[in-house]
């Protein structure tokens, strides 16, 4: 082989190696960027300050629930006012881990407590271990430049969520959610957003609410032993939990039904999606009312499944309690979780 041919071969090999290195660096930097972007969006939520007008469409029981809402976000506090044709709007206020949801039609304020002050760090670690996150482009949403992030399940290889995250402020401007079976189940889109606008602290005050409004603490953290004592059932977590999910909390759940029956709510997350296991004693004070009738008379020889796009439910009787599993999982997974509760 002549020296000339050797030099040529050397140059070709060198060019291929250089191209490989550049490609690797581009791909790896893209992955690292996406991880960083999603982490900042997760952690920045408590620091941002904005007023936004958003529109959403979410599938529920075969219907498409459409809504416009005004969001007032100031650090840890957030108020969502649902804009609709109704005389009075439904709203929710979240402050310091507690969410107050006002439903004018029922004249009720639902209060939901959680103990998740440190949960976001754990969730982001879980999310990155269970999902592949990639930045697949940049687009403009409501006049703001945004990264388009795609989140794909590592286990099933399907797209679980797409997010448009503001490049500068790290806020979520648009999202598309996909169900466990890959169908589109919800869209959120920001129409207008203005940052660093002063928000009157009175906006997050619930003391001015009409005193005739019924206040119900629907959800409060509780120790498993206390839940067993309070509800007089032996509380057992499911023996089967889908891969990637971890237990996140135990709560005492008060039903909104007028007979106030109560359940233990066990919550699980994989960083992006969630499911709940409710264990409800059969012998409730609401005996004779409609909800108790359903609990006692529905047979429950096997697991009774219901499907909707947002969450599937499975219900099964176990001794002196009814076990209900709710989550965006495949029906067979819901059934398996419900059946694994002792």
């Amino acid at each position, binding site marked *: 082989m002549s020296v000339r041919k050797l030099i040529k071969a050397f140059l070709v090999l060198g060019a291929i190696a250089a191209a490989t290195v550049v490609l690797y660096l581009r791909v790896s930097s893209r992955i690292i960027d996406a991880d960083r972007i999603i982490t900042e969006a997760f952690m920045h939520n408590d620091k941002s300050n904005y007023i936004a007008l958003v529109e959403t469409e979410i599938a529920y029981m075969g219907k498409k629930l459409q809504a416009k809402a005004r969001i007032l976000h100031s650090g840890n506090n957030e108020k969502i006012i649902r804009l609709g044709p109704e005389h009075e709007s439904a709203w929710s206020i979240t402050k310091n881990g507690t969410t107050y949801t006002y439903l004018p039609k029922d004249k009720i304020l*639902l209060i939901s407590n959680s103990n998740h002050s440190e949960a976001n760090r754990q969730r982001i670690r879980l999310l990155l271990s269970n999902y592949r996150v990639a930045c697949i482009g940049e687009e403009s949403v409501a006049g703001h430049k945004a990264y388009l992030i795609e989140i794909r399940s590592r286990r099933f290889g399907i797209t679980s969520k797409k997010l448009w995250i503001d490049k500068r402020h790290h806020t979520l401007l648009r999202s598309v959610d996909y169900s466990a079976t890959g169908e589109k189940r919800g869209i959120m889109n920001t129409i207008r957003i203005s940052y660093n606008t002063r928000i009157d602290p009175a906006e997050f005050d619930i003391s001015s609410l009409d005193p005739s409004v019924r206040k119900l603490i629907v959800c409060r953290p509780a120790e498993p032993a206390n839940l067993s004592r309070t509800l007089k059932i032996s509380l057992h977590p499911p023996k089967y939990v889908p891969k990637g999910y971890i237990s996140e909390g135990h709560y005492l759940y008060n039903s909104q039904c007028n007979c106030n029956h109560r359940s233990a709510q066990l919550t699980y997350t994989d960083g992006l999606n969630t499911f709940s296991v409710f264990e409800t004693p059969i012998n409730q004070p609401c005996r004779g009312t409609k909800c108790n009738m359903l609990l006692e008379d529905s047979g429950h020889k096997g697991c009774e499944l219901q499907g909707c796009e947002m969450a599937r439910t499975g219900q099964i009787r176990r001794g002196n309690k009814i076990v209900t599993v709710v989550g965006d999982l495949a029906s067979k997974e819901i059934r398996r979780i419900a059946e694994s509760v002792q």
Partner: protein
Amino acid sequence: MSECQKTQNLLSDYRTGLLSPKMCRDIEAHISRCPKCAKELRVLDDVMALIERNITDCEPPVGLWNRVYNRITQAQHTNSKAAIGRWLLQPLHAVGTVIAIAALVAAIMIGDIRQNDMGYSVASHSHAEYIQGHVLYAAKVPLADRVGYLSIVVATSSEASGNQ
């Protein structure tokens, strides 16, 4: 680690079928030429046989009851098909069945059977309240569509409170 040690560490996995076909072949090849490891495998088999003979309390697998129940009901359904066919062949029964079907269709069209335009049945009262409870929790996950979830809480509220 010697080949014998490696093989002996994998024997229990080999016996319970947890190894790949290639690893199984490697172990079988080694056992065929190594009397020490072959003896170790026989001891393992004896111990497993002893355990199996003495197990008295065994928990049924998850879903056993449902599988049995579904198979029983499926068998009943198959047997009853022939009987239904014979019954329908009688003219009076056939006319009665047609009238009953027509009445049911009329009830669906006119009555308050709660079926929406996409063909999903509306969640029963008891399920709606659990969906609401779950949504209140799910909405707290960062990056969740909280406005969409609020729409679901509003939609489930009347069902959950019994104001239908």
